[in-house]
C-alpha cells in the first residue's frame, strides 16, 4: 500500500488518544471496556480490510463518483450531504476538545473564542487545497510530530512509576459483556480508513492489499488501543480512574524529563499533539468540504470570473464551530462525542452494506458493457 494510506489510518488512531475516546473507555472501566476493545480491534480490522479492498477495486474513484453511477439522485444528494455533516462533526469534536485543552492547560487567560479561532484559521484554508497537497502536508507534519509522541509513549512505558499490577487488575475485567459506548469509542479509532471516500482519488493505481498489510494495521491499532487505555490506569490506579477528565493529560504530567529544557512533559505533549489534532481536523474538514462540492457543484459558482463557490462553506464552518465553542461545556462535549461514536457504529454498518450494493451494480454495469 502507498504510505499515504497508512497516514490516513494512523492519524485518526493517534489523534483520538487525547480526545474523548480514553475518557469514555475509562468511564466504563468496570462495565466491559476491555472486551469492547478486543471486539473493536477485530471488527475494526475487518472493516478496514473491507473498505480498503473495496476502494482498491476502483482506483482513483471517490465514493460520490461511484454513487453517482449506481444510485438515484433522490438518494445521492441527501446522502452525500449527510456524509459531509458527519465529517464536519468529527472535525468539530476534535476542535472543541483541543480548544478546551489549551484553555485549561496552556493559556488559561485567553478567551475560548480566540483559542478556537487560532485553530480554525490555521486549518480552514488548508481544507480548500487539493487532496494531493493535503496528503503531503499530513506527511510532513506527521514526520515532525510523531517521533516526539513516540518518545513520550516510550518514556511512559519505561517509567518506574508505571504500576503493572493496576494494568493487570484492569485487564482482568475482560470477562464482561462489551458495552455499546466503549465499543463505539474504540471503533472510531479504526475509522480513519473511511477518509478513502474522498482520498481514493489520489490512489489512481491499483494497490496491493494483502493479509500482511491488514495484520500490520491490526497490530498497530491494537497497540494504540492498549496504550490509550492501560497506560493511564498504570499511572493513576484502577478504582477511581474515571474521575480524571483528561486521563492522558494527567498521565503526561506524571512523566518527568529530568535533563531537558522542558521538565514537564505535559506541555511538550499538548503542543505536539496539537499538530496531530491539526491534521485530524484538516483531513475531516477537507473531506467534508469535498462532499459539499459534490452536492452543490460549488466549483461552478462564479462571480466576475472567479470561482467563489469553493469558499462559500468557510463562513458556515467557522460560524458553527465558534457557536459550539461558546455553548458547549466539558460534560456536553463528552456526551456528544459519545453519542456521535455510537451513531457511527450503525452508520458505517449501513454504509458497508451500501458498498456491497455498489460493487454489484458496478460489476453488472461492467458485464453489460462487455457483451
Amino acid at each position, binding site marked *: 500500500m502507498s504510505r499515504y494510506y497508512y497516514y490516513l489510518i494512523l492519524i485518526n488512531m493517534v489523534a483520538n488518544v487525547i480526545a474523548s475516546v480514553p475518557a469514555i473507555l475509562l468511564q466504563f472501566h468496570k462495565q466491559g471496556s476491555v472486551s469492547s476493545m478486543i471486539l473493536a480491534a477485530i471488527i475494526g480490522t475487518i472493516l478496514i480490510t473491507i473498505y480498503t479492498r473495496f476502494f482498491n477495486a476502483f482506483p482513483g474513484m471517490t465514493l460520490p463518483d461511484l454513487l453517482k453511477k449506481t444510485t438515484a439522485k433522490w438518494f445521492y444528494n441527501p446522502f452525500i450531504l449527510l456524509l459531509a455533516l458527519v465529517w464536519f462533526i468529527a472535525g468539530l469534536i476534535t476542535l472543541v476538545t483541543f480548544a478546551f485543552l489549551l484553555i485549561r492547560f496552556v493559556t488559561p487567560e485567553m478567551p475560548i473564542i480566540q483559542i478556537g479561532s487560532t485553530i480554525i484559521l490555521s486549518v480552514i484554508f488548508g481544507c480548500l487545497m487539493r487532496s494531493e497537497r493535503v496528503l503531503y502536508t499530513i506527511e510532513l507534519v506527521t514526520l515532525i510530530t510523531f517521533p516526539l509522541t513516540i518518545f513520550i509513549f516510550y518514556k511512559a512505558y519505561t517509567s518506574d512509576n508505571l504500576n503493572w499490577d493496576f494494568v493487570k487488575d484492569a485487564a482482568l475485567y475482560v*470477562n464482561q459483556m462489551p458495552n455499546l459506548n466503549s465499543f463505539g469509542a474504540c471503533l472510531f479509532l479504526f475509522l480513519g480508513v473511511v477518509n478513502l471516500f474522498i482520498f481514493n482519488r489520489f490512489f489512481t493505481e491499483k494497490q496491493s492489499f494483502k493479509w500482511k498489510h491488514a495484520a500490520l494495521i491490526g497490530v498497530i491499532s491494537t497497540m494504540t488501543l492498549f496504550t490509550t487505555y492501560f497506560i493511564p490506569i498504570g499511572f493513576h490506579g484502577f478504582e477511581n480512574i474515571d474521575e480524571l477528565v483528561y486521563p492522558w493529560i494527567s498521565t503526561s504530567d506524571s512523566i518527568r524529563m529530568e535533563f531537558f529544557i522542558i521538565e514537564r512533559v505535559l506541555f511538550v505533549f499538548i503542543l505536539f499533539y496539537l499538530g496531530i489534532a491539526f491534521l485530524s481536523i484538516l483531513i475531516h474538514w477537507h473531506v467534508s468540504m469535498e462532499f459539499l462540492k459534490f452536492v452543490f457543484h460549488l466549483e461552478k459558482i462564479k462571480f466576475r470570473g*472567479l470561482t467563489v463557490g469553493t469558499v462559500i462553506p468557510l463562513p458556515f464552518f467557522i460560524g458553527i464551530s465558534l457557536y459550539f465553542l461558546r455553548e458547549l461545556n466539558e460534560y456536553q462535549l463528552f456526551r456528544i462525542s459519545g453519542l456521535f461514536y455510537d451513531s457511527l457504529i450503525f452508520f458505517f454498518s449501513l454504509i458497508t452494506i451500501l458498498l456491497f450494493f455498489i460493487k454489484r451494480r458496478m460489476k453488472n454495469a461492467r458485464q453489460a458493457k462487455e457483451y
Partner: protein
Amino acid sequence: MPDKQKNTKLFLLLLVPIITLLAGCEFKDIDKNVFVSIIGIDKSDDEDKPYKITLKLYVPTSSFKQSPEPEYAYLSQNGETLSEAIRMLESYSDKELEFGHSKLIVIGEELLKEQKVSEILDFLLRRPDIQMISWIAVGRPSAEEIVKMVSQGENAAYPALFNYFEDIGTESQYIVTTFLFDFRRRLTEDGIDPVLPIIEGKKKKKHFEINKAYVLVNKKEPYELSSLYTQTFNILSMNASVADLSTKREGQQFVARIDSINSKFKVIVKKNNKIELDMDTSLVGYISESKNQLKTEDLSYYSRLFEAEGEKFFTDFLTEMMNIGADPLGFGVDYNSRILHNKRMSAEEWNEAYKNAEIKLKVHADLKSTGIIQ
C-alpha cells in the same frame, strides 16, 4: 491554483477584524509573575479558618552569579478553604502567583492526623497548574517551619529540599519519594496505602532530616515508620537504589553496601481465603566496613549471614505492617491483578486475610567483594 489570491484576500479580510478584537488580550510578561517553589499546608489555630497556607516564593534577581545567597519571599494566610487562602495571598503580592513551578508540597503533621488529606488532594489535583510530578511530604513540626527554613549551603534558585528527592542529588536509603499522582493513586486505591516522607527541620543546626515516613491507613491514625522500617520499605519497594545494611551474627559484625536491589513479591491464594505473601529479594553488593578481619574465600559464608539478617529485617517489617493493617507495598493490588474481578474476596475478607497472611521470604544475597582490604 486560481483560488489562491482570492484566498489570501479573504484571509486578510478575516484577520483584520480579529486582530482588532484581540487588542485587549491577555499578555503577561514573565517578570510580572512570581514563582511559587514550595507549598506548605497546615492546620491553623483559627477555628473558622482551619487551613493555613504558606508559600515559598522565588525572588528573581538579575544574575544568580552576582548573588549566590538564596533569597526567598514567604507568604502565609489562613482560610476556610484552600482556595480562599490562596485568593487572599494573591492580594498580598503585586505579581501574579504562578504555581506551575512548585515542586514540593508539604503537609503539616497536625493536619495529616486530622484525616483531611483527601480534601487537600482534591484541591491540588483540580488545579491544572500544579504539577502531578511535584513531591509530597509531611512537615514536622509544621509545614510552615519547613517551608520557611533555608538550610546551610543552599544554592540560589534551587531549594535544597528538592535535592533530597531528586535522583540526581543525594541517594539516601531513608528518603521515600512520593509524587503527587502516586499519592493520589495510593490513597484512592484499596490495595495499596500511601507512604509520605517526614521532613524534620533542625532549626539549630540549620539542616533538614528526612529519614522517617508515615503510612496512611484507611480511616486510622497515620502510622509512623521508624528510620529502620523506612529503609526496609525503600529496599522492598525498590525505591532506593543503594543501601547500607549492617549484620551482626555469629561473632561477625560487618556493614554491606548494596548497589543492586531487586525485589519481587506475589500473593499466593490458598483455600479458605488464606493467603501467602511470597517475597523474593536479591541484594548484590560488597562489604564496606567490618569489625573483624575478613577472608575473601568466606564471602559466600558472609552472604549467608547477611541473608539471615536481611530475612529477619524484612519479616519484622512485614509482620508489623500486617499487624496494623497497612499495605504500603501493594499486596492488595497484586492480589487484584491475579484474580478475576468477580471471584475476588470482599474488602473485609481481604483485610482479614492480609492480617493473618503467611509470610514466605526469600533473600538472595550476593556479596561480591570485601572491599579493598581483606
